[in-house]
């Protein structure tokens, strides 16, 4: 084990973190759209969104990665950047799951709040923005933080189809060179753990706080 190898793992970690942040950013925005569309009073919009969510929940992320890597070249894109393809695939994926989570949280806001806002004469969009979303956001924080852990873990498959360099890939390369699987995969595991465990803990803490304050 030498510094070069450690450096390779840390570089991979950076790739993981970068992809995770991009996914959370774009997936989050897309997820918000999905959540709102899912509860839209227009039945067509709600149904189509529901179909999209169920579709995404029935596919492995690897297949999505493949579609997002080979698909754009059909549309005329010359060379598909791995980070672009990976982010695109994970945005579709995370958007669906986050959308479902957030829809649940929006629907968990008591009906009386919706009614009160309506009676105050606010438009639907104003009701959303000023009354429902802020409360839904509070409820959504624990499961969202929990889902961030899923995002970080899922980045590990980005190297398999799309060729994006992240932590798992670098660890595998190191193993191919040194044939010390327990060491390098163990270290990679520890690095993932170092990122994910604090998030998991935080999510649990937030959930406990939320349950206490709800009583």
């Amino acid at each position, binding site marked *: 084990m030498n510094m070069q190898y450690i450096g390779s793992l840390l570089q991979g970690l950076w790739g993981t973190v970068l992809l995770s942040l991009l996914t959370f950013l774009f997936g989050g925005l897309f997820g918000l759209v999905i959540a709102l569309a899912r509860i839209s009073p227009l039945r067509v919009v709600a149904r189509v969104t529901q179909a999209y969510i169920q*579709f995404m929940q029935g596919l*492995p992320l690897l*297949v999505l990665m493949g579609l997002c890597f080979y698909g754009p070249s059909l549309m005329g894109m010359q060379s598909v950047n791995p980070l672009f393809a990976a982010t695109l695939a994970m945005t579709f994926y995370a958007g669906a799951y986050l959308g479902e989570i957030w829809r649940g949280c929006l629907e968990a806001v008591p009906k009386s709040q919706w009614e009160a806002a309506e009676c105050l004469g606010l438009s639907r969009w104003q009701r959303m923005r000023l009354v429902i979303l802020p409360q839904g956001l509070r409820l959504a924080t624990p499961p969202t933080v929990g889902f961030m*852990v899923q995002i970080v873990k*899922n980045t*590990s498959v980005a190297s398999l189809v799309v060729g994006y360099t992240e932590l798992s890939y670098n660890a595998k390369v190191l193993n191919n060179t040194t044939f010390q*699987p327990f060491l390098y995969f163990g270290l990679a*595991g520890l690095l993932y*753990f170092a990122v994910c465990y604090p998030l998991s803990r935080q999510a649990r803490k937030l959930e406990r706080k939320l349950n206490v304050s709800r009583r």
Partner: protein
Amino acid sequence: MNYEFDFGAVLAYWPLFAEGAWVTLRLAFFATIIGFVFGTLCAIARTSGPTWLQRIVAGYVEAIRNTPLLIQSYFLIFGMASIGLRLPILVGATIALVVNIGAYTTEIMRAGIDSIQPGQVEAAECLGLSRTQVYLHVVLRPAMERVYPSLASQYVLLMLASSILSSVGVEELFGISNRVQSDTFRNFEVFVVLGVVYLALSMLLRVAFWLLNLALFTRRRKLGTPI
């Protein structure tokens, strides 16, 4: 778009896809059953075992839930090979899946067990039932019924996640599709077909779990109410 789709070339390989799908289903089946039993035992250890055992199970669950399946698979499969343990690839893959899903099952079943009111256990013990009998007859059945939807979705996700094992050489559905890609160079079409097949497998599993729910939980079948 000047690309000409050629699904025909890809669909000609349907026997290969079928073979891969069959491996995926077998993997999912065995991993689900063994993983469920293992996870339930861990959940029982976590809720009523000695403190040292509870800590070990808690550590195991946290380690698995905070690391990706890919790393776990690499660690186990390449690790075992490096110490001379040469298992058939499907056995190694099943072990990796069991270790993974066992942790998630432990958490879900633990929540189920915790949801059983203490009064139920008290009543059963006062009727003379032993600890084991209380677990078998009074705790596990209703616990399982309560968390069944969570369990079912986890196991469907497991089937989808088995695609990751292609990276360690398992010839399941995703892995076998590589052969089609290298033969036809129709990568996009292959992924579309994969998508359709996985969707079909997901739906198949969901239906199977729904039927199992009706078969296992008589009360649910008769009354239709949650427990």
